[in-house]
């Protein structure tokens, strides 16, 4: 039986939804946009085809022969590699303070995914976050301020509808197979405990399997479950899903969050506060070196709290 609150929500949401504006978009515009994108990709594929032909059929056969003899290659004939490439550090450019050790990877489709610990204003203070950026997506998970957070704080699955990744892959794994719920399996050699696969239709039932160098299965996992298949020094702790949302984990880390200090700031005041916060963090790192990252987070947090107390709107 519904409570009064649930009834209010059902009725209120239905009423609020009617206030949504009409979509000012014709189906033809969608088609045109997609066609334009496909033409760009087609042009790129054409250029690649020329290069491939120039390489010669013999060369391709030689590559295939080499692959067949690769001990780490999968045994399934339908299972092909989805390569992952480690990009140079210069690829990573963040406008906010970034802890040394960030990693940028190039996926099979040419997209980049970056993993970093960054500093950021966080409610009434300053915090460090584990951040992942891919295409137009970015996700952050707040971390405790007073600890040296590793780049991959804990094993996690995540992604968007066009990306599936697994961070914290066991160090002994030399190959990870990704089995989409719909589509063909692909495999990849993890880099720094990370695997990331472009996917056509992300699904919670997608499966990852990690193998060691001898082809033994170490871990098999889907979005909701992790199953340790063989014994060994593999951490079989619970795996969280990192699809989005730093809000709930943030509550887990910080407890109830105080929003009162920023609740009444207008846009200009908010920009002033964020500029001050990042400038303070950059200044601390410049003065003390990157090794002082964790201390700088702490001192910046304290400075931001003081700044906010001194910059509350009159009458608030």
């Amino acid at each position, binding site marked *: 039986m519904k409570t009064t609150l649930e009834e209010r*929500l059902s009725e*209120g949401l*239905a009423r609020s939804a009617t*206030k949504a*504006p009409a979509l000012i978009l014709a189906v033809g515009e*969608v088609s045109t946009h997609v066609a334009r994108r496909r033409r760009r990709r087609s042009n790129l594929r054409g250029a690649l085809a020329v290069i491939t032909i120039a390489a010669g059929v013999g060369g391709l056969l030689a590559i295939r022969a080499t692959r067949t003899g690769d001990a780490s290659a999968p045994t399934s004939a339908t299972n092909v590699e989805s390569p992952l490439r480690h990009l140079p550090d210069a690829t990573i450019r963040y406008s906010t303070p970034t802890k040394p050790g960030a990693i940028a990877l190039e996926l099979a489709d040419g997209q980049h995914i970056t993993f970093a610990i960054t500093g950021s204003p966080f409610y009434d203070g300053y915090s460090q976050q584990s951040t992942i950026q891919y295409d137009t997506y970015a996700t952050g998970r707040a971390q405790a301020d007073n600890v040296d957070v590793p780049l991959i704080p804990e094993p996690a699955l995540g992604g968007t509808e066009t990306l599936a990744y697994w961070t914290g892959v066991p160090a002994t794994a030399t190959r990870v197979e990704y089995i989409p719920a719909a589509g063909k399996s692909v495999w990849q050699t993890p880099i720094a405990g990370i695997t990331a696969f472009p996917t056509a239709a992300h699904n919670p039932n997608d499966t990852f399997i990690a193998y060691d160098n001898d082809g033994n299965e170490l871990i098999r996992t889907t*979005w909701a479950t992790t199953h340790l298949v063989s014994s060994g020094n593999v951490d079989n702790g619970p795996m969280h*899903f990192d699809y*989005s*949302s730093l809000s709930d984990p943030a509550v887990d880390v910080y407890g109830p969050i105080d929003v009162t200090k920023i609740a009444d700031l207008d846009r200009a005041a908010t920009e002033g506060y964020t500029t001050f916060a990042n400038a303070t963090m950059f200044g601390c790192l410049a003065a003390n070196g990157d090794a002082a990252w964790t201390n700088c987070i702490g001192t910046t947090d304290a400075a931001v709290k003081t700044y906010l107390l001194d910059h509350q709107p009159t009458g608030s």
Partner: protein
Amino acid sequence: MMQNAITAAAAELTGDDIVHVEFARFFATAKQPMMRLAFLLTASPQQSEDAVQDSFIRVLEKWSQINDPASYMRRAVVNRCMSWHRHTAVVRRTQSQVATADSYTDQPDEILDALLHLPQRRRAVVVLTYYEHLDTDAIGAVLGISTATVRSTLHRALAQLKGILG
């Protein structure tokens, strides 16, 4: 009438044209429900339109690979609406204020206002539960979280809303 015209035209078409006819039918039926869903998640007409437009483009690009376009579309819209709130807490806070100021109507809306106080995942779970009327399994599939997490998130969201709405 429009549906019949589209169906008749499809009889003479093949290949990509068929895809576009199928997509046009899907577009016609899904666009306003998706706008409403996006509006409840963002409270911003502009962000709703951007999210829905981007999602339709993605759906058409993947059309031949998608078994259930409606589910894919819903997931894409929710994901885009949530990514809008994603970056940092401060950015989220600022955007929520902007969204309130720019909202489609000047009339007070206690439910929409209350939703803006919820963290993004809680807001999504509430909207998917009480507007889309999805069960916990379906919500878990949309958000990519377990059903247990859906239940606990909904529990927290209701507790928070109770405090706000009284």
